[in-house]
């Protein structure tokens, strides 16, 4: 499993690098400045992909949590946990870049719209995932408990989104993104999404490998000394 991962890693790293350079080029040199909001709007090209990746990460955690609970192999737990960590990282980025974009454009740091609120709740749920592992009495329990959180938490996400959406549509203080996406904007966005997805995959594989190594090492240690 480790060997297969590193082979994929080699091609992936190059791809990721190329994609990220392409993304930078497109965001700063290729795409025209948006008429209404000016140059600050370019934050959008990183803010949206990062948000998408955070959802992807938690979906992966959800799937591998289910896998772990049914198969009980630590490698599934390693991926679930690595993905949750990456998810928290990317959700943090959403929550920071959102206000940085919001303040100059709409004059406010924060609004309780469906997307930002869901990201905030998502952040809280997956921090809880990591805390459960930290406060568990032993690693096997930590893996099992956090898998439960990974499953229960992910199911909550659409509920939160729909509920907050319903709430906000009754209070039209939501910010409406004016204008659609022109083709150059759409292409730029897609390249950025691809670039960040590859980045996420690289980080998660790396992290999961480290965790698997850690588990194997602990087992060897106990075999050797025990």
């Amino acid at each position, binding site marked *: 499993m480790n060997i297969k991962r590193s082979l994929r890693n080699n091609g992936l790293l190059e791809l990721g690098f190329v994609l990220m350079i392409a993304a930078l080029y497109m965001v700063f040199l290729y795409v025209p400045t948006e008429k209404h909001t000016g*140059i600050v709007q*370019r934050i959008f090209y*990183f803010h949206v992909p990062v948000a998408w990746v955070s959802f992807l990460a938690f979906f992966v955690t959800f799937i591998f949590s289910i896998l772990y609970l049914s198969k009980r192999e630590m490698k599934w737990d390693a991926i679930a946990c690595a993905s949750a960590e990456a998810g928290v990282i990317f959700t943090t*980025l959403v929550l920071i*870049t959102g206000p940085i*974009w919001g303040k100059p454009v709409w004059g406010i740091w924060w609004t309780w719209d469906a997307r930002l609120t869901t990201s905030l709740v998502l952040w809280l749920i997956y921090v809880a995932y990591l805390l459960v592992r930290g406060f568990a009495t032993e690693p096997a329990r930590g893996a099992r408990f956090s898998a439960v959180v990974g499953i229960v938490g992910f199911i909550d996400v659409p509920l939160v989104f729909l509920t907050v959406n319903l709430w906000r549509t009754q209070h039209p203080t939501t910010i409406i993104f004016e204008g659609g996406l022109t083709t150059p904007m759409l292409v730029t966005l897609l390249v950025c999404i691809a670039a960040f997805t590859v980045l996420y995959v690289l980080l998660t594989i790396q*992290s999961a490998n480290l965790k698997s190594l850690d588990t194997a090492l602990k087992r060897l240690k106990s075999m050797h000394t025990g």
Partner: protein
Amino acid sequence: MENLGYLFAAYTVIWAIVFGYILFMQRNQRRLQRQINLLQESIDKTENDG
């Protein structure tokens, strides 16, 4: 070119946090490496004694 500062801030934060995470993983890797070395020494010792 108003609000350039905000644009810079957003991108800086992204890279700072991503690199922070990579650093965190590096530290973990070094810790693991140290433990592997210790384990190796311990194994060598028992082989030599036994």
